[in-house]
C-alpha cells in the first residue's frame, strides 16, 4: 500500500520534470523531417496583431516552419538578450536596434546575412540606404530593416480648441513651442502644455542637433554633450519643467507621460510613430512636424530583424527574416498603421491607413533626419545618459555639472 504511494509520488515528480524537459527533445527531432520550430523575439506589444498576421501569411508559404513569439518589454529586452547570448539561448530571429548591433556583431552572437542574401539573390536595394548602413558592420550586413521611425510633435486638439490656440504647423520654432506651452498650461485643470521627456531619440538628441550640436564627433572619439550648443539645448528642454509647463521628472516616473498625454493631461509631446496604434484610438490626438531650432533636425532610427548565431534552424530563420522584410510584410505593417515600413514605396500605404492622423509629418522628417549614433559601446553611453541626465532633469544638479560628468564617462567608454 505504502509502496504504491511512493511509486506514485516518484512518478509524479519525475513525470513533471520530464514533462517540462520534453520541449527540447521535440525541437531537435523536428529538425530531421524538415519541420522546424523557431522563436521570434521582440519587445513591442503594440505590434503583436501585425506580427501575428504576417506569421499567418508566412505559414501559408512555409507550413512546416512554426514560429513562436517571445515578447520582452523594452526595459528588459537587451538585458535578457545579453543573458541569453551568454548561454547560447537567443531566440532564432530577433529585433535589433542600431545601438546594439555593433556589439552583437563583433561578439559573433548574430549571423552576417550578406552571403545568404547574395546566394538567394535577395536584394538589399529595397530599403533606404541609411538603414542598411546602420546594420552594416565591417562590410557585412547583419540585419534586414523592418521599419524606420522619426519624431513628431503630438498634440491634443481639444486642449488647443478650449484655449483657442491654433494647431502646430511647420512654421513653429522653439520660441513658439514655449509660448504655446505657456498658453495651454492650466494648473486648475491639471493640464501641462508640454511634456519634457528625458529621452534621447525624440528628445534631447533632436534638440541638440536642431541647435547645431553633435552627439558623437566625426572621428568617433568624443561626445559633444559639453559643447555650448548641447548645453543650451538641454537647458531649453529642462526649462519647461522649471517654468511649470511640463510635469516634473518625478511626476513622469510615477505616471508615464504617454498616459498623461492620451488622457488629456498633457497638451503636446514629442513621440515616435510607434505610438500610432495607441493614439489613433483617441480622436482628439494628432501629430505635426517637430518645431525647428537653428535648423530642422530629427533623429531617424530603424529596427531590423537579425538571426542569432546559436540558431539550430538557420535556413528556417533566414526564410522568416526574408519574409519579415518582404513587401507583403511591409504592406501589413502599413495597412495596420503600426510602424513606417522600411520597404521602399510602402510608406504611402502606411500614411493612408490612418487618414485622421497627419502621418506625413513622420515621413517628412526623414528628409532632414540624422541617424541615431551607433558605436560599439552605445548601450553603455545610453546608460550614463540616463543615470546622469536624470539628475539634471530633476534639478538636483546643474546642466553644466551633469554634462561634465557625462562627457567624461562617455569619452572613457568610447576609448574601450
Amino acid at each position: 500500500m505504502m509502496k504504491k504511494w511512493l511509486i506514485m509520488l516518484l512518478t509524479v515528480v519525475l513525470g513533471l520534470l520530464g514533462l517540462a524537459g520534453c520541449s527540447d527533445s521535440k525541437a531537435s527531432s523536428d529538425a530531421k523531417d524538415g519541420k522546424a520550430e523557431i522563436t521570434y523575439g521582440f519587445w513591442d506589444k503594440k505590434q503583436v496583431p501585425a506580427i501575428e498576421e504576417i506569421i499567418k501569411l508566412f505559414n501559408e508559404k512555409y507550413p512546416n516552419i512554426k514560429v513562436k513569439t517571445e515578447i520582452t518589454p523594452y526595459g528588459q529586452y537587451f538585458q535578457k538578450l545579453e543573458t541569453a547570448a551568454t548561454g547560447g539561448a537567443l531566440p532564432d530571429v530577433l529585433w535589433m536596434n542600431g545601438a546594439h548591433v555593433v556589439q552583437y556583431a563583433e561578439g559573433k552572437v548574430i549571423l552576417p546575412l550578406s552571403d545568404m542574401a547574395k546566394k538567394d539573390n535577395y536584394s538589399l536595394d529595397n530599403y533606404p540606404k541609411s538603414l542598411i548602413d546602420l546594420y552594416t558592420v565591417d562590410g557585412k550586413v547583419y540585419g534586414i530593416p523592418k521599419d524606420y521611425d522619426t519624431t513628431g510633435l503630438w498634440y491634443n486638439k481639444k486642449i488647443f480648441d478650449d484655449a483657442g490656440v491654433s494647431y502646430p504647423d511647420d512654421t513653429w520654432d522653439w520660441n513658439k513651442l514655449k509660448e504655446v506651452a505657456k498658453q495651454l498650461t492650466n494648473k486648475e485643470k491639471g493640464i501641462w502644455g508640454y511634456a519634457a521627456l528625458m529621452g534621447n531619440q525624440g528628445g534631447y538628441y533632436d534638440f541638440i542637433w536642431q541647435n547645431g550640436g553633435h552627439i558623437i564627433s566625426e572621428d568617433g572619439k568624443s561626445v559633444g554633450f559639453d559643447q555650448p550648443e548641447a548645453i543650451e539645448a538641454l537647458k531649453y528642454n529642462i526649462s519647461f519643467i522649471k517654468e511649470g509647463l511640463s510635469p516634473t521628472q518625478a511626476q513622469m516616473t510615477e505616471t508615464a507621460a504617454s498616459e498623461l498625454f492620451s488622457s488629456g493631461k498633457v497638451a503636446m509631446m514629442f513621440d515616435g510613430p510607434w505610438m500610432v496604434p495607441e493614439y489613433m484610438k483617441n480622436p482628439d490626438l494628432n501629430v505635426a512636424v517637430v518645431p525647428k531650432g537653428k535648423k530642422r533636425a530629427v533623429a531617424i532610427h530603424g529596427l531590423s530583424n537579425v538571426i542569432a548565431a546559436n540558431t539550430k534552424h538557420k535556413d528556417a530563420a533566414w526564410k522568416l527574416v526574408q519574409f519579415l522584410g518582404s513587401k507583403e510584410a511591409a504592406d501589413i505593417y502599413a495597412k495596420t498603421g503600426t510602424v513606417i515600413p522600411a520597404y521602399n514605396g510602402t510608406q504611402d500605404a502606411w500614411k493612408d491607413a490612418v487618414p485622421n492622423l497627419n502621418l506625413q509629418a513622420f515621413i517628412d522628417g526623414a528628409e532632414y533626419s540624422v541617424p541615431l549614433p551607433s558605436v560599439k559601446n552605445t548601450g553603455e553611453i545610453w546608460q550614463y545618459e540616463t543615470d546622469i541626465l536624470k539628475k539634471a532633469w530633476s534639478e538636483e544638479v546643474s546642466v553644466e555639472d551633469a554634462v561634465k560628468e557625462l562627457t567624461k564617462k562617455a569619452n572613457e567608454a568610447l576609448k574601450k
Partner: protein
Amino acid sequence: MERTRQLVTSKTFLIHFILILGSVAMVLPFLWMILTSLKTYTESIHVPPVIIPKDLQWGNYKEVFGLLPFFKFMFNTFIITVARTAGQLFLCSLAAYAFARIEFPGRNILFMLALSVLMVPGQVFLLPQYMIMVKLGWLNTLQAVIVPGIFSAFGTFLLRQFFMGLPKELEEAARLDGCNHFQIYWRIMLPLAKPGLIALGIFTTLWSWNELMWPMIVNSSPESMTLSVGLSSLQGQYLTNYPILMAGSFLAILPMLILFIILQKQFIEGIAVTGGK
C-alpha cells in the same frame, strides 16, 4: 465591582480599536487594488479619486489575459510550486530521518555541511546556479526553476528537529519485526512528522509562488514565465496604467488567496512551526 467591569470594557474597547485600525491598514491596499482594477484609465487618474467605478471595467481583466498568457503563467507557477513542494517534502524528510535516527560515519560533518548553506545569502549561489543552467541548456524551461528548489538545507534541518523529538521505542519495535529503515521512515516516522511536513509544505509553497529573482533570471520567455515575473513584465509594458496593472496583480494573488482561505489554520500553524517553536 462596577468599576472593574467598566475598566475591562474600556480595555477591550481599546484593544479592538487598535486592532481594527491595523486591520484597515492591512486590507485597504487590497480593496484599492480591486477597485482600481475595475476603473477606466481616466477614472483612475481623476482628482479627486473616483472610489466606486461608474461602470465596472471587466475588460481590464480581459486585456491582461489578451496580452500576456496569464493562464499559462498560472499553470507554470502551479507546476513549479507543486514540484518543488513535493520534491522537498520527500527528499528533505528522507535525509532528515537519516540524520536524526540513524548513526553513521560522517553524520555530524555532513550535517554541518548542509547547515552551512543556511548561513549563506542566496545571492552567493545565484551566478554559479545560473551558469549551471546555461550549461545544461535549461534556460527558459520549468526545470531550471524547479530543480535547485527541491533541495533544501532548511527543510532538512526543520524535519530533523521533528524526527529527533519522536520516541525511540517506536522504531525499536518495528526493527524487531524486521522492518528496514525505509519502511520505518515511511510507515512510522512520516505519519508522526505530519505537522512538520505541513509546515515545510506551506513554507515552500508560499516561497515558490512568490519568488521573483531566480525565475526572472532563468526564464524570460512567456512559455515558461511565472506569475511574479509576468507581473514585472506587465509593469514593463503598461508603465503606469494602473487599472491594468491592478487587474494583473489581483489575478496573480487570487489563487494563493483562495488556498489560504481554505487552509487558513494550516497556513498559520505551519508558519508558527517554521518559526522554531
